[in-house]
């Protein structure tokens, strides 16, 4: 089976093969976490290597599968032949054929191995680049901390990156093993406690990319999601500058009430400030995500819900149903509707 040589032709060919099979289901190649919808050099290399293995496999399958089907039909005999019925030729083997097929298999392995090893090295180390951005990623049960050490910015669950520049991710785990996976940009690398892993990625297409934890990490593993948002250089710098700023004290009275609730808690021992940090306020907790610029993020709950007042209310009142096992449950929150409204108003000011 000849594989077209040019990348575009190869993609078209692949799409027609898969579309044919996907016809029935109406498969989309641009779903939110599709590995087919590559948007950067790392995922592109990985996709190309995968295609080689896919084509070799498909090729072998078509050849051997056809032979199997052919044999199953052509050499069909009676179901219950009489005991004295003549036997088919009692072939015991064919060493030449065996050797030939083994060599052919070896050849196919070599054909796959060479681009594979090249791809391993190419995707492993980030290109040496002046304009690479470094982000320290720490995985917690069940959320992501993102820290930009060069800019002293700390945020959570939404990774903003500049378009067209390599992003180097230092991966650490605070508790158990997690795995950072944003399929359209790069394959995953694990976050392992007491181990420093590193990966890199780069987005060459603007967009918001969906990712989620890809190593089982406990009760709410399914809910440990995140988004990667690309920005143009200028926007990105502006964003960094804004993220560096402390939170302003709100002027709206409802928001001020909310701030009160946040710092002191509705009851003793329930202060949000114990576990969360809001720069410029007494809240310096390090257990949960940094909320200084909470309102600038598109989602809450680690990529779980869209960030709006209704969902903030849901988060504060139906936490166990929304994210089972959530550590915030240890606070045993019980907020009145007024408190919830006030908190939502306050959080909305944290842009």
């Amino acid at each position, binding site marked *: 089976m000849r594989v077209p040589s040019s990348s575009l032709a190869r993609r078209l060919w692949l799409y027609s093969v898969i579309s044919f099979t996907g016809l029935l*289901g109406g*498969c989309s190649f641009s*779903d939110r*976490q*599709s*590995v087919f919808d590559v948007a950067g050099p790392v995922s592109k*290399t990985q*996709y190309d*290597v*995968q295609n080689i*293995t896919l084509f*070799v496999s*498909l090729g*072998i*399958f078509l050849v*051997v599968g056809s*032979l*199997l089907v052919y*044999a*199953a039909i052509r*050499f069909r*005999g*009676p*179901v219950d*032949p009489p005991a004295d019925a003549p*036997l*088919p*030729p*009692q*072939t*015991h*083997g064919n060493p030449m*054929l*065996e050797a030939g*097929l083994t060599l052919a*298999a070896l050849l196919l*392995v070599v054909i*796959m*191995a060479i681009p*594979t*090893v090249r*791809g*391993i090295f190419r995707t492993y180390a980030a290109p040496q680049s002046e304009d690479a951005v470094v982000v320290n990623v720490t995985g917690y049960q069940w959320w992501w901390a993102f820290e930009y050490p060069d800019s002293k910015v700390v945020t959570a669950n939404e990774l903003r990156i500049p378009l067209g520049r390599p992003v180097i991710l230092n991966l650490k785990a605070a508790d*158990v*093993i997690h*795995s950072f*996976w944003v399929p359209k940009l790069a*394959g*995953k690398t*694990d976050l*392992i406690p*007491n181990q420093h*892993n590193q990966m890199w990625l780069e987005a060459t297409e603007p967009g918001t990319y969906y990712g989620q*934890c*890809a190593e*089982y*990490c406990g*009760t709410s*593993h399914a809910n440990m*999601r995140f988004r990667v948002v690309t920005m143009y250089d200028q926007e990105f710098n502006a964003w960094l500058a804004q993220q560096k700023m402390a939170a302003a004290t709100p002027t709206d009275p409802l928001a001020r009430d909310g701030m009160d609730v946040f710092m002191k808690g509705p009851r003793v021992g329930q202060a949000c400030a114990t576990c969360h940090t809001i720069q410029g306020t007494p809240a310096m907790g390090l257990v949960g995500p940094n909320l200084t610029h909470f309102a600038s993020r598109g989602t809450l709950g680690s990529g779980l819900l869209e960030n709006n007042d209704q969902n903030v209310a849901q988060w504060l009142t139906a936490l166990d149903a929304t994210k089972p096992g959530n550590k915030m449950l240890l606070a045993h929150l019980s907020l009145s509707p007024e408190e919830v409204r006030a908190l939502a108003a306050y959080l909305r000011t944290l842009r």
Partner: protein
Amino acid sequence: MALELVEARPIPEDRKRFDFLLRLLRRPTHLSGLLGWVTTVDHKRIGVLYGVTALFFFFLGGMEALLIRTQLAFPNQNVVSADTFNQLFTMHGTTMVFLVVMPMSAAFFNVLVPLMIGARDVAFPRMNAFSYWMFLFGGLLLNASWLFSQAPDQGWFAYAPLTAKTFNPGQGVDFWILSLLILGISSTVAALNFIVTIINLRAPGMTMMRLPVFVWMTIVTSFLIILAFPVITVALIELAFDRFVGTNFFNISRGGLPILWQHLFWVFGHPEVYILILPAMGIVSEILPTFSRKPLFGYPVVVFSGAAIGFMGFTVWSHHMFTTGLGPIANSAFSLTTMAIAIPTGVKIFNWLGTLWGGQIRYKVPMMFGLGFILLFMIGGFSGIMHAAPPGDAQQQDTYFVVAHFHYVLIGGALFSLFGGLYYWFPKITGRMMSEKLGTMAFLTLFVGFNTTFFPMHWLGLNGMPRRIYTYGEGMGWDGWNLVCTVGAFIMLLAFVIIFYDLVTALMHGPRAGKDPWDGRTLEWAIPSPPPEYNFAIAPTVFSRDPVWAQKHPEFLAHDDVVDEEESPPSEADLPQPEEGEGAGYALRGGLDPHGIHMPAGSWHPVLSALGFLVAASGLIFSQAQPEGHHTGLVLAVLGLLFGVVNIYMWALEGVGGYHIHPDPEVE
């Protein structure tokens, strides 16, 4: 047939004081009914026990699967809670691997190996029984966790530090650790038994290269077991020490490295998957020649590939760890070894194809499962090749693509073959035929249901759906296909219901099977169905591979490549040759022993010893649930251990016992 009871050797006078213990559990000579099964040392009965028990656990694991699939049929469901779901997939995986596929293979090892090599039983019949009881008790212990709402929930691979007491304070992990330790003993001891049996108890003339491929796969699998299980045993003991005693093997707050667990687990785990598939490959290698009416194509190559796969299986383990940051050199090395192992695997497929080629294929139910195996295992192999490339694997790892891969090789491969084997050897074990009609229906239903369930998972994985998630959001594009997978799972349920129904009705009133209902090739088809207790009245002297086929169709031996290809002339002179009046395959030389056939007595000690270890394990688990200062669990653990060990000593001392059977010379 006359039964003559033989006393255990008489106890000398001076030992009588201590022998109340020995008298307490008199070695039962020939019990009937339930007690007969509890004290049996007969490999055929033990095989049946393994098979029935494995089917029971298959039902449990299947229910777990159906709950999983029901929960995932639609996004954002609450059919089961997150915690329950996590327990379900952990138990489903652990059950299917350790309590279904391995024991089903063991069922076949037990029933077939002595018959295929012309032996009366395995080398160590009581140890054989012990293996079974350890399996049963280990499986019951694991599932007892459900009763305490503490089923393990850390995944079947149990990555540290999720298994640490800090992150998993309940008893689930403890149940998992202790059950696996018991199951590990069961498997290791059985493997040793089969190695000794195959090396030492072959009938005269049954050289290694005349062994049925199934027996070869048994011995290769057994070597894999004895080399791989110690590794996980070490890992489990280290984890147990961390949890029970506070050591720091995997304790991250004291510098423990989680990657250590992964290496230990996968050095076991990868050979484990070959332990799961090689017996199934052996079964297929028996079924295909019978129903093609010609020998296995390339027997020495198939045998050698099996051994090569076993050996190379120890060189690939880190392909389960491509995303853990091993570095490009390690990833490249393991990628290459993993691609290399595809070669002997592919060679086997070519040889099975060669067996079909030019044959006269008989479409009986075992053959249908055999053909299904080749196709579906091949597909599973291809997703495996795709995983072998780390860049591709970086996207595929921990997604439904992997789930698709291993279900294709484990269900499409192992399970299809095991069910083919069930239909094939059921007549031999029970003396009754299963139904061709029901079997065909079951096969077709299973084929459709299985592909409906698992083929879309390739797509789901590449579409970004990770594994081990109890739910998923809308708008991900995963909705429709998940529903299809769930529907497929229920179709599979239907297929298994049909098989179960067929099994039960065949047992009750299936048509009687003669000794050779399939026109078979190997020695088990030379004796009545079901076989007499002693298997062979006279040990057959074997002259060729496929001795029963050679006996019926001597022209099969006409090719020069049969006898000479692997046996150099000098050693051939030592092998027995057929004489005047004897068949070309085998002969019954020497006549019946005038003393009769000495059969071993049963024994209480295997089941009691296993019970002791069960109590010990339960005690240890219980001790973890107890508050400080309470030691009942620990006491139970020590007592149980003692009881287990004492019973082993007693079985060493209990004497031979047994009875003689004088078979009817007319029959055999």
